[in-house]
């Protein structure tokens, strides 16, 4: 009961989703749409559960006076403000949009732009052309970066002034992106996809059961 019914549900939903995608019949299309909508209805509950867990974690931090517990109030303030304004009035509300545009978007962009500094220091330490493979990685990354910006063209032209490839920085970048890079990506995509398919078949047939967790 505790493990068998979930396995049966998984099997039924998996088979239904496969079968409905191969059949153009109107009933099949209707079933497909209903199941997709059903999954879209179930998913937000998982998000709410995740939020409950987040609230529990921060409430525990406050109660135990853990390190930096005061900042948990800031998490609650942000969360409650967005939910109190957004849930009753909708995402088109002026205050909600103001918070999104002036608080979330700038912080999101700034957080990701911080990586520019750390990626540069990490590259300085990691990029040492000690082996052929490391040299390939280094040279490719440099060409791709140079080909992306106007100043890269100037550097490229200085370096390549003795070759016939002057003014070809962006062409070199494009050739790398659409040939050796794409072939490596295709190899990875094909490998990963075969893995996804085999794992999906294992899940549907009940061979892979790790998602059920431990216990009875």
């Amino acid at each position, binding site marked *: 009961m*505790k493990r068998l019914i*979930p396995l049966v549900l*998984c099997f039924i*939903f998996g088979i239904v*989703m*496969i079968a409905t*995608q*191969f059949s153009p019949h109107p009933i099949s299309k209707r079933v497909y749409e209903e199941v*997709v*909508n*059903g*999954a879209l*209805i179930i998913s*937000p509950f998982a998000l709410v559960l995740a*939020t409950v867990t987040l609230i529990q974690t921060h409430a525990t931090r406050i109660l135990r006076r853990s390190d*930096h517990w005061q900042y948990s109030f*800031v998490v*609650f303030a*942000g969360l409650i403000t*967005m939910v109190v304004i*957004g*849930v009753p009035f*909708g*995402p088109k509300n002026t205050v909600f949009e103001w*918070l*999104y545009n*002036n*608080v979330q978007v*700038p*912080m*999101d962009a*700034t*957080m*990701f732009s911080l990586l*520019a500094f750390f990626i540069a220091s990490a590259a300085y330490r990691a990029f040492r052309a000690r082996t052929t*493979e*490391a040299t*390939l*990685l*280094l040279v*490719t*990354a440099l060409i*791709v970066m140079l080909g*992306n910006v106007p100043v890269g063209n100037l550097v490229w032209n200085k370096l390549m002034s003795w070759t016939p490839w002057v003014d070809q920085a962006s062409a070199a970048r494009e050739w*790398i992106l659409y040939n050796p*890079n794409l*072939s*490596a990506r*295709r*190899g*990875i*995509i*094909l*490998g990963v996809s075969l893995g*996804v398919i085999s*794992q*999906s078949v294992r*899940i549907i047939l009940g061979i892979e059961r790790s*998602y059920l967790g431990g216990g*009875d």
Partner: protein
Amino acid sequence: MQVFGIWVAAFLTLCIYSFLYQDNPLYRFAEHLFVGISVGYGIVLSIHEGFIPLAWNPIWASLTGDSLSGLWKLIPIFFGLLFFARLSPRHTWLIRYPIAILIGFGAGIAIPNVLRANIFEQTRGTIEPFSVIHSQTTGTAVEVMPSGEFTVFIIGAVLMVIGVICTLTYFFFSVEHRGPISWLSKVGICFLMVGFGSAFGNTVMGRVTLLIQRVDFLLNTWIGSIF
């Protein structure tokens, strides 16, 4: 309100950049605010763009109208509510029901789509340039390529096939990597390094673009609003 928004955004941007010096209370404030705001935004979107149009509206229409078909939506809501069984130690096992449905749904939807988009389309994309080469050499092509461009095209097409085969060989662990397999695998590593180098270069440029955008905001939009 707009100027106030610019000041708030500038303050939060500077709070986050203060981390470049060291971890400090201003950064921690912005970091925690970011978590709270982002989660709140996610909840609002999933309710207004998922739950309300897909579940609430059909159920409300059923209760107020003639057709009861919208009441079917109570079934996924029931399974969704089982997620909260996680909060009761005695009933934690009930969470397996919605997880099993979502996993089965994901696995079922993945097989045909991955086959179509990632296996057939990628294989077609790898082989297709040879049909162009064939049409060029037999004179059946609509547009004839200049000879220099055609040579580069052939090199690219051959390189593509070699790269895909060698990369796949590197990930093929069913046979021991010795002899010719080992050589193919080593060539595969070289292609992978070029791929990783390109990904790294693009990531760096993407992050630098974001940095330029933030600095532009601070210098032009924020300081520009003062003077």
